[in-house]
């Protein structure tokens, strides 16, 4: 399920040579195109159906029955986003502008500069065009460092602390290999990063992988920054497992909730999926990153192997904990757009949009896991996020839906080549044009509050409203009655304030001296804090 939740095909047949490979962009795909058949395979009947996928909801399609197999073809072409003619009054593509986002963070400054060295994606084809690097590193340095980092994903700035100016830097593993190769430029480059912060004399490197995996990666040319080469850095392993482990874990979650919900040993079966344990490890890792930056006053470098899965989880979650801006609706969109989409989380490979090979080893629910972590945080801090659960579920639904271009393709360069922003609609257009639906009524804006969620098994829950939402027996009231009631109460409060306003106005009009009239009552009232 996790491997190809979106596959619009339900064919269980072996790969058929005669099926011509569907073009990836799907633009020219004809819905009426005949069903590809094996020699001797005869179509018996076909019928329009709605296939209720437990994780993606209903998919409209036509099921073809031949003398050999069942074949479901979605009525939507695989990449519907390119045919989508929806119009919204907001353009979601304008939500994220890297220059503006870096300016919001106070960049460039005298330690960090914005570089366009990757404008044509020559330095690193999976990175965005615009990067923030140390002021003291020349473009030539960057090119040399790139040769020593897996897929040329050099260390670049993700976030800078507004006060203590420590930074979160992301990259991929160094190409140390079996022979223990070194690269002077890479070592100097990390030292330059360290020197941008003089509060502590060590740079902290978080390797998201388990120690053994990092060592094993040496065999394939990768590795990690060892102490004896990077003298001024401390390396910690965060023990987060790879995409294959996560995929298998979610598969087990599926097995206990579908087609039948496991009942007799629910808790131990849930535990045996290890899904919550993985969530715990990801959150714990992110908490460490955030704590190091905020309290430890140390700059951190985060990487895993290629720096597009676990790294994205860690940096984005840490940023969510540190920076209240990302907890607003638009801020979160920017966070996803920046740390995930622009920095090349391989959405196309991980989700498999329009690809029928759902056993592909590249599939993995990494982004889903990130959203689950965000949901866990929103449970623990019910007033800290501007968005509600529906917002998160909507993002996940459209992660798979192909209705919007937002999550298509693996990296920015591919998206640019396909002119995604011109030819598709952004998911954020849908959300931002109807923001009220996605707002958390309990949200209380707080600046500079760092959130440290409790990443303990006792406080993590299975996200029942997402994973088991299709099951009518697991009843839940939608929309959330508490939210609704709260909004009613807020409306009532506003009404009373208004009425008080009017009454006082009427009262003051009666008074002979108009200059003595009191100021508006709503101004006089202290801001009513409604906490639960």
């Amino acid at each position, binding site marked *: 399920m996790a491997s190809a939740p979106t596959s619009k095909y339900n064919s269980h047949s072996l790969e058929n040579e005669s099926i011509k490979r569907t073009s990836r962009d799907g633009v020219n795909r004809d819905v009426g195109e005949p069903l590809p058949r094996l020699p001797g395979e005869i179509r018996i009947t076909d019928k329009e159906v709605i296939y209720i996928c437990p994780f993606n909801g209903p998919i409209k399609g036509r099921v073809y029955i031949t003398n050999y197999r069942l074949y479901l073809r979605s009525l939507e072409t695989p990449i519907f986003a390119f045919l989508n003619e929806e119009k919204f009054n907001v353009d979601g593509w304008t939500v994220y502008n890297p220059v503006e986002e870096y300016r919001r963070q106070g960049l460039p400054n005298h330690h960090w500069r914005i570089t366009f060295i990757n404008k044509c994606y020559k330095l690193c084809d999976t990175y965005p065009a615009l990067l923030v690097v140390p002021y003291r590193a020349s473009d030539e340095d960057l090119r040399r460092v790139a040769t020593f980092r897996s897929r040329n994903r050099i260390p670049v700035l993700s976030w800078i602390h507004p006060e203590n100016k420590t930074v979160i830097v992301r990259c991929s593993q160094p190409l140390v290999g079996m022979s223990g190769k070194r690269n002077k430029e890479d070592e100097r480059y990390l030292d330059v990063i360290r020197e941008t912060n003089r509060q502590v004399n060590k740079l902290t490197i978080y390797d998201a992988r388990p120690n053994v995996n990092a060592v094993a990666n040496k065999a394939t040319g990768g590795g990690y920054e060892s102490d004896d080469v990077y003298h001024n850095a401390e390396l910690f392993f965060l023990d987060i497992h790879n995409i294959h482990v996560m995929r298998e874990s979610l598969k087990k979650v599926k097995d206990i*909730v579908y087609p039948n*919900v496991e*009942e007799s*040993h*629910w*808790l*131990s079966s*849930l*535990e045996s999926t290890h899904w*919550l*344990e993985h969530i*715990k490890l990801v959150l714990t890792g992110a*908490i*460490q990153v955030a*704590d190091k930056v*905020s*309290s430890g006053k140390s700059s951190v470098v985060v990487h895993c192997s290629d720096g597009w899965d676990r790294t994205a989880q860690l940096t984005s979650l840490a940023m969510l904990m540190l920076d209240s801006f990302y907890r607003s609706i638009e801020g979160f969109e920017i966070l996803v757009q920046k740390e995930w989409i622009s920095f090349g989380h391989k959405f196309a490979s991980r989700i498999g949009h329009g690809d029928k090979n759902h056993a592909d080893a590249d599939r993995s629910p990494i982004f889903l896991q990130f959203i689950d972590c965000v949901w866990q945080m929103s449970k*623990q*801090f019910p007033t800290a996020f501007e968005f509600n659960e529906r917002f998160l579920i909507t993002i996940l639904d459209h992660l798979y839906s192909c209705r919007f271009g937002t999550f298509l393709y693996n990296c920015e360069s591919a998206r640019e080549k396909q002119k995604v922003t011109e030819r598709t609609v952004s998911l954020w257009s849908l959300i931002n044009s109807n923001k009220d639906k996605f707002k958390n009524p309990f949200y209380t804006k707080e600046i500079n*509050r*760092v*959130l*440290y*969620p*409790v*990443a*303990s*098994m*006792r*406080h993590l*829950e*299975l996200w*029942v409203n997402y994973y*088991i939402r299709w099951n009518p*027996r*697991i*009843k*839940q*009231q939608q929309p959330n*009655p*508490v939210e609704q*009631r*709260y909004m009613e109460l807020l409306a009532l409060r506003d009404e009373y304030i208004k009425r008080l306003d009017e009454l006082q106005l009427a009262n003051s009009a009666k008074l002979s001296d108009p200059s003595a009239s009191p100021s508006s009552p709503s101004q006089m009232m202290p801001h009513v804090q409604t906490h*639960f």
Partner: protein
Amino acid sequence: MEFAELIRTGQAQAELLRGPEEPPLRGTLCITGHHLMLSPGPQATPDLWLLLLRNVDSIEKRVAGDSGTITLRCKDLRVLQLDIEGVEATLDIARSIEALSSLESVITSFPFFYRPKGLRLGDAWHFHPPECYYKRVARETNAWRLSEANEDFSLCPSYPRAVIVPRAVDDSALARSARFRQGGRFPVLSYYHAPSGTVLLRAGQPLTGPQKRRCSEDEDLLRAVLAGARPGARGFIVDTRSPQAAKQARMTGGGTEAKAAYPGWKRLHRPLETGRPLQESFVRLVEACGDLEQSMDRWLNRLESCRWLSHVKETLSTACLAAQSMEQEGACVLVHGAEGTDSTLLITSLAQLILDPLSRTMAGFQELIEREWIQAGHPFQLRCAHSAFSHARPKHEAPTFLLFLDCVWQLGRQFPLSLEFGEGMLLALFDHAYASPFGTFLCNNEKERCLCEVRTRTHSLWSGLSQPKEQRKLRNPLYVPNPLAIWPSAEPQSLRLWQGDPPPPPWRSSRLCSASLPVLFLLRPVSARDPST
């Protein structure tokens, strides 16, 4: 008996640790007949800290050098630590607490001495007698009457003086039926569901014995119930034991209703555990929650092996079954287990919460507790003698009432707007059931309460809770009256462990969260020394 004989020390200097969130308290410790008191020095806050000794479930003392440490584990699941100067003083205080907290006499207990300002004795005691409920029933139907056959508690010592029975059955028939039921608990009306015209009854098991005895008055009584509902009405007998257990009970004189003897009634078995297994489950759960060292990787497994949540699940689904039979099938329901004072009351009271919007109001819920638990003869004194920490061998202890509160909490979680009272109310009831300055939960039944003159000599909890400053803590601010039945989901995925207050936000602390891990399930913070202070 004089308390003074048991108090072995005047006073001592001590420091009290109440948990990671609260600062330690230093001052002079002293013991009275009912309380442990800590009076802070002049420089600290002037508040006096008080603990009802009856609340102490277990006590542990340790001495080292010239000071000692006493750890008190309370019935309300708090864990307190006292660091006391002087070895002798420590031992004396520990011995005094041990002696005073285990006094069994009811009439020397604190409620008989508690005289708060602003409350008048006897105020709320006539708040919820069965007569009130009968008035409600009589407005809807004529088939029932209030019988005072139990005026002197001779029919059934665990029933109140007045009970509601079918109009067609006279008092002498009730007396015969009482002799046929365990503990004299003949079938009485528990709830009348007006929309369907059906009733919920409760009783003790019939004493059929190995000879399969019958009792025609008992049979008549149940026949009259069906006749009073509507022509052709059916009935379900929900037996809270397994068919085997019910059959086995015959060997010891009990049993269950024979099919042939009760036409129109169908028996359903829904085994619910009570007594020892339930108490053990509670102890294991509290142990698991308090064990912060254990590897968290096995938490869910451990939680499951406590079986507490499966008790919640079974209870809720049986209550749903009873409620459903009434509302949707239009059938009358009789609930009983063996004695009819534990799981029976769980089911009848929960079924009412599901069906009856009035019982979900503040006043209605208190009335429900008074009528279906206290007056219905749940033996609070026996069941709540000890909580989860006691090392004493459990005799009659069982957290049946806590299980009920947990089920209500689950209802409230699934229907956050439909209960007028909030978690604060449930926590207060839990605390007061185990140790209270009020007399409401004293004794095991009405007969004992009369003997001890509880009504005239102690204050009622309900008047204590009706104080405006209490009310704020007890109410659910989101309450909107909901006229419908609320059907909870009893799937394991829908149930949660009752964690008590939401975890305090660990923000503004630069420490990582593990240091301020809030403890679960009503668990007040464990008082271990916070490593960072």
